[in-house]
Structure formats: structure tokens, C-alpha cells
């Protein structure tokens, strides 16, 4: 789990760095109100989607864990964590990672994107930690599925409100 977590962090930091560097130019050239309005226009449909009021697909690379990764032990865990941390090798049931990426480009100042990445890695790591602590038979996934109609909107509101508050305070 340590190697998986480290991989998650590396992957998330890599994507956040690219997004932060890519966003440096628009954050300098485009006035803040225009960027904030654009971010708001992205945030509203994402929020509605997470609350189940709107349906649309988000870009995702829907691939399952390859069998060979499991045989590579530590390096496999590191590699898989890295790939999941980038968000480029997994199903994405939520649009919140995409919104966070948009925030990193449009409204979050470069130093803060690393905290965004660290938070993302920690949040992503919570799932296997909770699942393993819950039971060995993977039944946490069923608990998640039952709790999803409540938890998903709570997470969406928390994520969006925190990004907006961070944007306004920055």
C-alpha cells in the first residue's frame, strides 16, 4: 500500500505540474473575472451531474488493473498507483477530477496545485485503505454503491465549494 500511495502521489503531482505550468500563461494573460466565470460555467454542470440531475460522459481511459501489474509486487503497485494518480488509466465515475484539473489550469495559483495533487492522492488512497480495513472480501464496494447517492453529492458540493472559496481567497 505504501508503494501504491507513493505512486498515486507522483502521478497526481506530475499531472498537477503540467496543468499548473499550462495554466500559468492564461492566468497571466486572461483577466481573473473571465477565468472565474469560465470555471463557474464548468462547475455548474459537473455539480448537477454529481447530484444525478444531469447525465453526460467525461473523458476516461477505462482500463482495468492488468494481471502483470499484480505479479510485479512493489514496482507493480508503484506503477499502478502512478497511473491511477495521473487519472489516465482508470474508469472515472466522477467528473470532479476533471473539474479539479480545470481549476488547476484556470484559477488555482501554481504553488497551490501541489496541494491539490496531494489531496487527490490522499483521497484516492482512502478507498483501498477503507476497503481493506472493512473486510477481505471486497464488500466495501457494495457499501460504497449503497452510500453513493448521498456521498457523491456531498463530495461534489465540498469539492466545488472549496475550489470556489480557494479561487476567491487566492
Amino acid at each position, binding site marked *: 500500500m505504501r508503494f501504491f500511495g507513493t505512486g498515486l502521489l507522483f502521478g*497526481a503531482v506530475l499531472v498537477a505540474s503540467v496543468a499548473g505550468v499550462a495554466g500559468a500563461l492564461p492566468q497571466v494573460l486572461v483577466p481573473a473575472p473571465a477565468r472565474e466565470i469560465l470555471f463557474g460555467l464548468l462547475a455548474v454542470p459537473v455539480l448537477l451531474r*454529481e447530484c444525478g440531475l444531469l447525465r453526460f460522459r467525461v473523458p476516461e481511459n477505462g482500463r482495468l*488493473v492488468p494481471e502483470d501489474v499484480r505479479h510485479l509486487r512493489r514496482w507493480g503497485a508503484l506503477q499502478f498507483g502512478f497511473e*491511477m494518480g495521473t*487519472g489516465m488509466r*482508470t*474508469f*472515472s*465515475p*466522477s467528473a*470532479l*477530477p476533471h*473539474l*479539479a484539473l480545470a*481549476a488547476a489550469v484556470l484559477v*488555482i*495559483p501554481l*504553488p*497551490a*496545485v501541489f*496541494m*491539490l*495533487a*496531494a*489531496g*487527490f*492522492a*490522499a*483521497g*484516492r*488512497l*482512502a*478507498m*483501498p485503505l*477503507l476497503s481493506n*480495513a*472493512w473486510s477481505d472480501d471486497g464488500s*466495501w*464496494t457494495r*457499501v*460504497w*454503491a449503497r*452510500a*453513493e447517492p*448521498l*456521498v*457523491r453529492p*456531498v*463530495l*461534489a458540493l*465540498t*469539492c*466545488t*465549494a*472549496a*475550489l470556489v*472559496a*480557494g479561487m476567491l*481567497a*487566492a
Partner: protein
Amino acid sequence: MTPSPSPSPSARFRWVLHPAAPAFALVLAGAQAWWAGSVLLLVAVAGAAAGFANSGST
């Protein structure tokens, strides 16, 4: 009549592992970060919520 067995400590605190627990912990952390006016903490909370929301993907 035998008394019903009391739940073990691990069973008693199992609710901490429920998906709703970290979700509401993030709400509290976000409120705390907003109260403290810390942009870094707010952004970290947003990232954690985004990461945890993808929990159904594995």
C-alpha cells in the same frame, strides 16, 4: 434469558470505515479551512474530495 452479546470494539467503530465518514470529515475540514482562510488547505480538501469521489473506479 441470556443477555445479548455486546458488539466487539472493532464492530462498534466500524462506522468510521463507512464511505460517508470521510465525506463528512471533508465537509468539516473544508469549513475549517474556509474559517482559517487557508487557500492551500481549501485546495487540498477539494483535491481529496475529487480523489475520493473516484472510489468506484477500481
